[in-house]
């Protein structure tokens, strides 16, 4: 016969197991409400987020037009990027380096899809060319700003190419 003490003991064991499993698999992450509210108020609709250590790169929609923006997350200040948002650019995808100094992006320009790397320190805009023929769609840059992985479409197939960024020592 099982007595009341044993029932309570079993219940305690089951409860502690449930608690342990819950702790392992659904840890709660804290939403940064202040920052998120600031982002919505300042940038509106945001596409293609790319996080560096202290920077956030993104495409923000100004009056129906996508623009490249870089935000310093510590100061909540949008950084000036002279020459990156040309009137003929329609950016599609972007990725930033860990220190936020390099921004790689794919843009539509003059009915063509092109790939560029922008260096914040020098304000220079460098075009890059894929060694394979195809239309670039998405990209990812490593933290050092030395390597790009580019998704592109060729003859209806989606492929990925790796491209070294020139000028990296």
């Amino acid at each position: 016969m099982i007595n009341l003490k044993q029932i309570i003991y079993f219940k305690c064991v089951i409860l502690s197991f449930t608690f342990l499993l819950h702790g392992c698999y659904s840890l709660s992450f804290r939403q940064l409400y202040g920052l998120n509210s600031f982002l919505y108020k300042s940038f509106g609709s945001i596409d293609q987020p790319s996080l560096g250590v202290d920077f956030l790169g993104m495409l923000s929609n100004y009056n129906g037009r996508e623009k490249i923006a870089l935000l310093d997350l510590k100061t909540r200040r949008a950084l000036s990027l002279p020459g990156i948002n040309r009137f003929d650019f329609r950016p599609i995808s972007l990725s930033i380096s860990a220190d936020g100094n390099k921004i790689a992006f794919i843009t539509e320009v003059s009915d063509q899809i092109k790939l560029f790397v922008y260096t914040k320190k020098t304000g220079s805009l460098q075009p890059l060319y894929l060694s394979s023929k195809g239309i670039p769609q998405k990209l990812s840059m490593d933290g050092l700003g030395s390597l790009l992985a580019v998704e592109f479409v060729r003859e209806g197939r989606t492929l990925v190419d790796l491209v070294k960024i020139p000028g990296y020592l």
Partner: protein
Amino acid sequence: MIRSRLFFLIFSSILLVSCTSNNKPIPRTSFLESQADPALSGDGKKIALIVNRNGKPSVQLKNLKTGKILSLLHLSKYQPHSSPSLSWNGRYLAVIGHMGKRKMVILEDRMKRRMHKLSIPQGLIPIRISLSPHARKLAIQSRYSDEDKLYIYDLSNTLEADSSFGLYR
């Protein structure tokens, strides 16, 4: 006769070598077929890609130097996957997955062999995510009523930082 043929051979091979060594603006590092949505680790040593596995888009992690596929313990049951993102050393892999019809953000800690599910508010549909190189922050682009908003989560109370000095390979 033999001398003239020999001279012609040497001359043509010199010409061939000089022609092929020019015009290499960006060396292609490798070529990966039938793969999409690339995400490089911060150190540029690993790549996460979406591949087609049994008709379902699934995340695959690769060591770029060896080409070896690295094991992921928890993610296969949350297919289809999209928008992978890696921390600096590739210790953490975040991806959008599915639980039934519901989209969710999942994060695998490869060092501790543990998985974290991120509970996001009901009604929000995650579109793209970005994990910061040191795994302190996670950005989630979510769609709600045809509008894309960005939500940034703080992971610092829940996860150990991914070091940039090669603690994990």
